[in-house]
């Protein structure tokens, strides 16, 4: 016990006084930086997870898409989903011509589209 106390005392003596005076001086600057980044990334991950599992419920896979202006090119919208339709539906018009469409895997969700 005595030896331990002496060792601790020696250690304290050996340390430079500045080490004890400066509150922030005990970390290397790059370490501070890494800690800041790590904390930030953890926060982002938490935010992402919260967003994914709690807030995404009502939106499901859909992207809210608004087209203002070009009314004539409005895509087919199933009933009850005004203003929120699968982004893939907006994209399956072929790039070559306005009247051609590409076969793209249909969005599979709870929305039932009845062909008219």
């Amino acid at each position, binding site marked *: 016990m005595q030896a331990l106390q002496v060792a601790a005392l020696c250690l304290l003596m050996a340390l430079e006084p500045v080490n004890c005076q400066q509150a*922030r001086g005990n970390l290397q*600057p*790059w370490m*501070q*930086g*890494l*800690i*800041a*980044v790590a904390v*930030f*990334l953890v926060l*982002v991950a938490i935010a992402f997870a919260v967003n994914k599992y709690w807030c995404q419920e009502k939106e499901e896979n859909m*992207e*809210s*898409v*608004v*087209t*203002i*202006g070009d009314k004539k090119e409005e895509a087919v919208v199933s009933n009850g989903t*005004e*203003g929120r339709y699968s*982004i893939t539906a907006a994209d399956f018009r072929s790039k070559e011509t306005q009247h051609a469409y590409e076969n793209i895997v249909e969005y599979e969700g709870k929305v039932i589209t009845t062909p008219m």
Partner: protein
Amino acid sequence: RISEAGWVSLELVEKCSIQPLENALLPLLPLQSMCRTNRSTIGGYFLAGRNMVWWPVGASLFASNIGSGHFVGLAGTGAANGLAVAGFEWNALFVVLLLGWLFVPVYLTAGVITMPQYLKKRFGGRRIRIYLSVLSLFLYIFTKISVDMFSGAVFIQQALGWDIYIAVIALLIITTIYTVTGGLAALMYTDTVQTFVIIGGAFVLMGFAFHEVGGYQGLFDKYLEALPSSTLSPAPALYNISATCYQPRPDAFHLLRDPLTGDLPWPALIFGLTIISTWYWCSDQVIVQRCLAGKSLTHVKAGCILCGYLKLLPMFLMVMPGMISRILYPDEVACVVPEDCKRICGTEVGCSNIAYPKLVVTLMPAGLRGLMLAVMLAALMSSLASIFNSSSTLFTMDIYNRLRPQARSKELLIVGRVWILCMVAISIAWIPVVQAAQSGQLFDYIQSIASYLAPPIAAVFFLALFFKRVNEPGAFWGLIGGLLMGLARLLPEFAYGTGSCIFPSACPRLICGVHYLYFAIILFLASVVLVVGVSLCTPPIPDKHLHRLVFSLRHSKEERVDRAAGTGLGARQGALFTLFLPPGPPAGQPQGSVGRCMAWLCSLGGAPQRAPEPGVERLPDITEHPTWSRVVNLNAIAMMALALFLWGYYA
């Protein structure tokens, strides 16, 4: 025709010894007169046809932010107080993301071009716009014109050894020639080019500076020993110089400083500054206009990220060279005896403002030095000219025209020019204040003025976007109340003077003791309470007026009933557009040769005014490609991570 920028630089280069390199690089400058494309329509002029891809957006965001005030101010405060002033820049890069992600989508769907126009659509009514015009004139004079003139004059003073007022007058004369002969025409592109020439020069200078001081480690080893040689008061009976006035601060290498005793306390730097930055970056016409020119929302966001990365640079390009300047020239830059300072730079409170010009003049190789000074002054003059122009239009159109609606165009023209003269006079009269304010630290001065006047504006814009319930009376009385509170601090502070380390100000502690950024937080919160309180006591604005004007309704597809008169581009708003157009006779061309000659002289040779075209009314959509949107989001996170690493590193 030789462009004015070229002319100015030729003259200066002559004074700073011509080198072949300069002659090779000078043709860069006359770009000024070449980029005159696509300005014949409002949309074309303002928004570059809404066709800019991400990198010009980001570059011009950065370029319109960085001015010679930054070189003088950041380096000067860096020399005096150490690294912390870079926090001003490193805070802004988060706010730029706020702009791209939260503010610009709403401005885009609202289909507005100017910020007053947005407020008018959002709240209706006219008085908010008049208020904003008056306040922006104030801010122009006190934070832009006088600061620009002062920092340009410091450069000239250091380069040519002139008195600061002679330098200002020379600057003004050259600027007048510059504007009268039509140098005003193209700003956005050439400003960007000039800024990047300056940044390139700054990189070179940084290299020389670090070389001179013995590398990065040399800066950190020697800064704390950078003391002036004469520190004894020549008149001990009158005053003594305490050691804290000339020793570098012990916390010079820290960004985050003590919340009570620090010169830039960390809560103020993080929270208070965010408020000022929100005003500067998210509700200021100059900045937002750059974003609205973007091709799509994704491009705007990417531009904001680029600007954020560029904003990391000033720490290394300006603040650290400023500190090096103190190490290399402690007697000049860190002077403390008032008589010495007066001899060195013309003011008694300290000469840290000369840190950067001093480096340019003494360290740069002769050729680059002339180029750097020339480009910097040319950029400064073009920005001065555009401020003169837009503020004179602001005054004639928004204020004078309302006082005297029957005023004819010739009268408006003359009033506009007289107003410019008045502003110049006020600004020159204000320069001694700029010189001495905040212990002679330019950047602190700018930020403190902004802290007293801008928080109510930031609060109103913030609430306008994110709270549907806020209405016109709330916004207006919030702005007025905030202004009164701000003036209650601003006026005593400048009446008593901010004092210096040796002669502290006599201002009572209760009024001036609070750090200006803390005051910004208080003012912001008070304005928010006032706006929300008054809004809750008055009837709300129905949703039909708000579609696509507030954040929560940005995706709404409903028809909006516009409360602005007409369909949005009535006569009044036509007048509003001219605020930012190159000057032309405000209403039609004057007839007759004398009139035309007058118009040519007075209207600064601008093109005739164009009628606003209805095409701008096409509403842009804010859809984003999911992949690219994800890429941009990830990039934003990467940028924030890098920024936070640097914050942590220099904390």
